[in-house]
């Protein structure tokens, strides 16, 4: 069989999804905005991985002054580079730990949403029939669920923990991806080369893995990038609303504490770092997503 496959004409052999992914990645790297996005993302990943070593203090520890009083709202100094919070916590340490939560949420959402959306989208688009019917009815309902209100209710009911937040995000965002991937599969399925491959006796598995998947991989990447951005935003919004996991430090939570303790105006050193980091992370993802978008829509390309 292996022999037969290598001898088969290229049109029937297809290509692997990996090579298609690599090719699409190289195209994205031609886009200077996307390069900026990837650079930001890389820096963020490095900071997230090394955060425990970079952070000078325990983010939950209340700092004391020499006189034994709580070091409240200290502006940036040599000792506390980004000052302290109203509760005497070191802002820099909290800020650095925030990288971990944001990227963890993004990473898990990317894997979960990418896998579920692709699986359902491909099955539904390729096989059609009742699988497709059931799936489309489910997404019909799922698409009329208001995302943020649903997450607020669900996280409040399930209990505010990082696991529940990730669960809710996954439940919410697989649906759009599945729809988009399904329609991409629908167009691919009708292409001549799929019919040839089938006529030549290729199995469904072979056709999906080597013909359909390589051609829709850009749509999958586009959707995964967008899902990561939505996931980061949703976690930040929930934490800002006071529904974050109290046992970890996230940027949304830092802003929530600054906001609810009424220190937005005075303690700029407490507010600016998490805000800027959130904007940079989400924008970086959108910049990469945009490059995939231009690829998946050939009419947007320069002519």
């Amino acid at each position, binding site marked *: 069989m292996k022999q037969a496959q290598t001898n088969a004409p290229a049109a029937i052999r297809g290509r692997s999804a990996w090579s298609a992914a690599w090719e699409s990645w190289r195209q994205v790297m031609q886009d200077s*905005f996307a390069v900026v996005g990837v650079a930001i993302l890389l820096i963020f990943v490095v900071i997230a991985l090394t955060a425990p070593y970079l952070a000078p203090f325990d983010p939950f520890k209340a700092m004391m002054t020499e006189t034994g009083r709580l070091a409240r709202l200290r502006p940036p100094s040599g000792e506390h580079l980004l000052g302290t919070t109203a509760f005497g916590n070191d802002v820099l340490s909290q800020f650095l730990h925030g990288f971990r939560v944001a990227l963890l949420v993004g990473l898990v959402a990317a894997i979960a949403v990418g896998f579920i959306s692709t699986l359902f989208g491909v099955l539904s688009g390729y096989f059609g029939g009742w699988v497709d019917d059931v799936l489309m009815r489910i997404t*019909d*309902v799922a*698409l*009329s*669920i*208001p*995302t*943020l*209100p*649903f997450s*607020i*209710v*669900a996280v*409040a*009911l399930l209990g505010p923990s990082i696991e529940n937040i990730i669960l809710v995000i996954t439940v919410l965002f697989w649906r759009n991806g599945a729809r988009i991937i399904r329609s991409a599969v629908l167009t691919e399925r009708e292409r001549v080369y799929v019919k040839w491959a089938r006529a030549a006796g290729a199995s469904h598995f072979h056709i999906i893995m080597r013909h359909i998947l390589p051609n829709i991989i850009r749509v999958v990447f586009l959707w995964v990038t967008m899902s990561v*951005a939505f996931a980061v*935003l949703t976690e*930040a*919004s929930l934490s*800002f*609303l*006071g529904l974050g996991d109290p046992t970890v430090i996230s940027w*949304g939570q830092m*802003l929530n504490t600054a*906001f609810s303790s009424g220190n*937005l*105006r005075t303690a*700029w050193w407490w*507010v600016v770092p998490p*805000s800027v980091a*959130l*904007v*940079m*992370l*989400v*924008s*970086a*993802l*959108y*910049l990469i997503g*945009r490059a995939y978008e231009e690829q998946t*829509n050939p*009419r*947007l390309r*320069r*002519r």
Partner: protein
Amino acid sequence: MRAYIIRRLAQSVLVVWAVTTIMFFMFRVMPADPTAILLERGLTDEARQALLEQWGLTGSLWDQYVAYLANLLTGDFGSSFLYRKPVWEVLTPLIINTLWIAVPGLLLGAALGAAIGTAVGWAKRGGKLERSGIFLATIIRGVPNFVIGIALLTIFSSTLGWFPGFGMGDPGETTGFARYMTLDFLHHLALPLIAVIIYFMPENLLLMRSGVVENRTEDYIELVRAKGVPQRRVAWHAARNSMLPLITWLFPALAETIAGIVVIEIVFSWPGVGRELVLAVTRQDYPVAQAAFFLLAVMIVIANLAADLVYGKLDPRVVYK
């Protein structure tokens, strides 16, 4: 056409039913006892039982579910645990408050986004205007809405003192619609409204730009140009045809924006449905939370339905089956 509308309506009703059911079971399966919040007010066991019955929280889950659906059909959302009055009485004024920032914010954001988007889409490919337009729009799109709110609040309210940053202002003597026609109200409205506009604009801008870029190389544009029509008018031709996807996207976006301004309402303490939803959830006032969520879901379903119908009106190529 009529058959299509009927089928689409039936489908929408089905979706609303499904969302309601999901919500109902989510709220009932929770371990928390809603009367627990009333215990500190010294409630006797009998009184507690009476309250449970009044709220429809006795009997099997199935009985409760049937009773809940029956009540919904008659427009009865039950009564708030906290305010001790009917839920619709609590929510009606809040819906109006939410619409006050949502609808103008959405329309202005869309108009502004469409105008700038046309300019960016019509600009030279790879030129300065196009590149900076796309870059800025993408960055602004990445700003979480509470960060927009915090920035506006800190700059224009706390530091410059130009606008109030809290609530809707003093209602004073006036009631009814006159309450919304005071300078004080508009003064309070400004910052949350600007926040919604900034939050909503970039998406429109990018969508419009893609549409114009797609359309500008079409043959009909060449034809218009060949007729000697000035550049500006040619751009308008492309813009008009790019509005189609924008408009269909607007309706569902309206619903999602109403949902998304929960956070903006919180930042500016604007008494709207979204803020009440968050407060109700944290106070365990479930009838209010359930109804607020239901309202938001219904808005999305109606918006999607409207989008489908409007699309058919605007695009003669769409055939209803």
